[in-house]
């Protein structure tokens, strides 16, 4: 079966899932749970197989998953990424505020995530202002 789809690579999303699954499973293994690690990696392999099958389709999502999308599909991908990032940022800020209220001033890991988000957003603004 050819792996090069009409536009992009059909195995791209599946490869990302396999590599990600290997990293997560490796971390679980190092954490002392080899059995759980095998189950986690197996689950990621199933997700990768589903992604590979889905990526062979002719729809917008399949094209985005192959990384071979056209300008409208890239726009959809960009908006979806922005929506996901915004939702994550709002959730993290809310969680940081809840943690501050609980601990009396310590936002916990959510504070670090807020800091990373804010800093990366600022850097991105500077870069894209010059490039666009």
């Amino acid at each position, binding site marked *: 079966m050819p792996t090069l789809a009409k536009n992009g690579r059909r195995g791209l999303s599946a490869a990302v899932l396999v590599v990600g699954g290997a990293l997560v499973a490796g971390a679980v293994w190092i954490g002392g749970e080899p059995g759980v690690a095998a189950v986690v990696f197996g689950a990621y392999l199933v997700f990768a197989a589903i992604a590979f099958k889905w990526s062979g389709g*002719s729809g917008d999502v399949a094209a985005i998953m192959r990384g071979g999308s056209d*300008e409208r599909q890239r726009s959809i991908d960009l908006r979806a990424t922005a929506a996901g990032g915004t939702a994550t940022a709002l959730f993290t800020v809310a969680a940081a505020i809840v943690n501050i209220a609980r601990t009396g001033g310590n936002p916990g890991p959510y504070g670090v995530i807020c800091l990373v988000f804010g800093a990366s957003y600022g850097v991105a603004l500077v870069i894209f202002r010059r490039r666009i």
Partner: protein
Amino acid sequence: MTQADLGESLGVSRQTINSIEAGRYLPSLPLALRMARLFRVGVHEIFEMEKED
């Protein structure tokens, strides 16, 4: 010519041609120019400003 044929000629998907025809997606200037060149017409003959634009 089908939407799939036009998409193939312009290097975009059938869905993108459908969205442009339906007025849901405004193509980039390069894509609009490629479309005009393909049909051997001016861009203004394919796309026109609406009052609210």
